[in-house]
Each structure stands twice: as C-alpha cells, then as structure tokens.
C-alpha cells in the first residue's frame, strides 16, 4: 500500500510538466485569433455592403459571426486559459454548467418572437 501511495504522488508531480504553452504555441494562437477577427471585418466591411441587395444580409452573416466567435472563445479558453491541458474532469466541471446558458438562449429567443407579435 505504501508503494501505491508513492506512485500516486510521483504521478501527480509529473503531471502538467509535459503539455503546456510554449512561446511558439502562444503566437500561433494569437495569429489564429487575429485571422478570425480579420475575416469578421472582411464580412462586415466588404461582403455585407456589397451583397445586401435584399437588405437581409444579417440572415447569412449573423450565423457566420456567431460560429467565428465561438471559435475564438475555444482558442481563448482552451489555450490561453489552459483548459485544454487540464484534466478532463476539471474541464467538464467548467464546461457542463455553461451549457445551461443554451437553455436561457432558447427560452428568451422563443419569448422575443412572442413579444414582437405583441408590438407589431
């Protein structure tokens, strides 16, 4: 039993040393974030004004913005905040509660469609 305890501690001390953020990785994530932001600007400043004949560019542009934003969130949380390198249990303890937010989004989007019918 005593050897088992020692092994546990050795494993604990060794963990977290191998997989971490190197300078190279930090700058790579920075260029990804910068690139995604540039794509968003390109859509907002060039594509939307040029392909907005029907006035409903938001129908295709908004989903793209949201997906790109989620990508940026993944890179910030995963790499800058290091969550990708934490234990899976730890990552789940943070990520699973965040999924409740989806519930609020669904409820309030549904509700807002009802409100607009009241207002018009």
């Amino acid at each position, binding site marked *: 039993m005593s050897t088992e305890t020692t092994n546990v501690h050795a494993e604990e001390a060794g963990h977290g040393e191998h997989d971490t953020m*190197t300078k190279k990785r*930090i700058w790579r994530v920075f260029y990804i974030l910068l690139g995604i*932001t540039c794509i*968003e600007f390109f859509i907002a400043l060039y594509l939307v004004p040029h392909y907005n004949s029907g*006035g409903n560019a938001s129908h295709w542009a*908004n989903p793209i913005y949201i997906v790109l934003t989620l990508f940026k969130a993944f890179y910030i949380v995963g790499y800058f905040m290091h969550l990708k390198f*934490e234990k899976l249990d*730890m990552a789940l303890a943070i990520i699973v509660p965040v999924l409740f*937010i989806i519930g609020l989004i669904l409820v309030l989007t549904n509700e807002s469609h009802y409100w*607009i019918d009241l207002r018009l």
Partner: protein
Amino acid sequence: MSTAVTQPMDEVKSTPWSGGRSPFNVEYGKLMMWFFLLSDAFTFSSLLISYGALRFSAPTWPAPSLVFQSFPGLIEHGAPLVFVGMMTFILIMSSVTMVLAVEAGHRNAKKEVVMWMLFTILGGLMFLGCQAAEWTHLHGEGFWWGHIPTAEVLKEFFQAHNNVLPSYAQQAMTSHQFANLFFTITGFHGFHVFSGVIINIIITVNVLAGTYQKRGSYLMVEKVGLYWHFVDLVWVFVFTFFYLV
C-alpha cells in the same frame, strides 16, 4: 479461520476521486478562480441574452455601422468598426502578453514576468482610454442611460427599408433600449477591465518585491491571468453582438 486475509473490498483504491488529494490536480485558488469566472460568465450571458431578446423583439434597431462609424478625435464619419477593431486588437494583444508572463513564470524568470505584466497593464489602460473616448463620443451625440439624441441626429442611425425610415416612435423606443443596454454591458465589461488592471498592478508589485520568488512558484500570475483572459473572452462576445450583428 484467519482474520488477516485481505478481501478485495478492503483494498484502498487510488482513483483521483478516492480522497487524499486534489482530483482535478489543480491548486485550490486556481480552481476557485475558475468557479468565480463561471459565475461571471452567467452574469455576462444573462446581460447579453437579455440584449438579444430585446433586440429580436424590436421592430427596428440603430444600425451598428452607422452608430459606430467614427474614430474619436480623428475621423467623424465613414470609418465603421475601425476604432473598435483597434480596441479588439489591443485587448487580444494584452492577452498574449499575459500568457507570455505566465510562461516566463514557469521558468522563474522574474525580469521577464515583470516586463510582460507591465505590457499587459499598458494594454488594459489603452483599452480603457479607448472606451472612455468612445463613451464620450456617444455621449456627445446624445446617447446616455435613459437619453437619446434629438430626432434630427437620431434618424442618421437608422437604415431605410424599401426607402422608408422607421417611424420616430419606433426609433425613439429602440434607441432607448440600445443606449441602456450598450452603456450597461460595455460599462460592466469596462469595470472588469479596470479591476483587472488594478489586480495586475498588485501582482506586478508582488513580483517585483520577490514574493513569488520566495514562494518558489508564480501561480498567482497564472490565476490573475485566468481573470484577464476571461475579460478578453467577454469582449469577443460584446464585439460580435454589439458591433457586428
């Protein structure tokens, strides 16, 4: 019959959850920082989702490309997203210098930690300066909590549908909602940036005083780093939902 026989049930398990050590393999303070940020994420999402619901249910809304088309102090019209793009760049950049400080901390390189922390503080202060300039500009146009510009100015911020502008009543109603939500949400975010700058200054003073060198670990830099990245993360969402959508 011997009583010394070990039954399988008596064996001490050594899974991460069998006690005696941190199952997440994370220091207490860092885990608590994560849980605080989780609660903060709920606060910000409540604010942003309320904004989304009000905007969805509004018959019209001030167009971001018309409201945010100035570079305060330089360009008055026709430069949509340029200023906020710079603000976004400053904040992402300060996030990078923050990870670089954490990385230097892993190597116990005190001087480098101080240098990157100072860059991070500088980035935070620049962002706050930009936000102050933008708030001043919008306030100058007539926007504030519960206040909207005069009818003459207000109609400049709306796009016509089939060559018809929304009625003044509709413009006034949604502009009030826009003003209240914009100042509340960017104000709450700006307050987080401000707190972050103060905390970063405290940590930098501690680094200079050699507190973490004596402790043998720069874990505090990592914890304040988590907070700082979270502030950047929230800005990514504010940027999308106020300036792009």
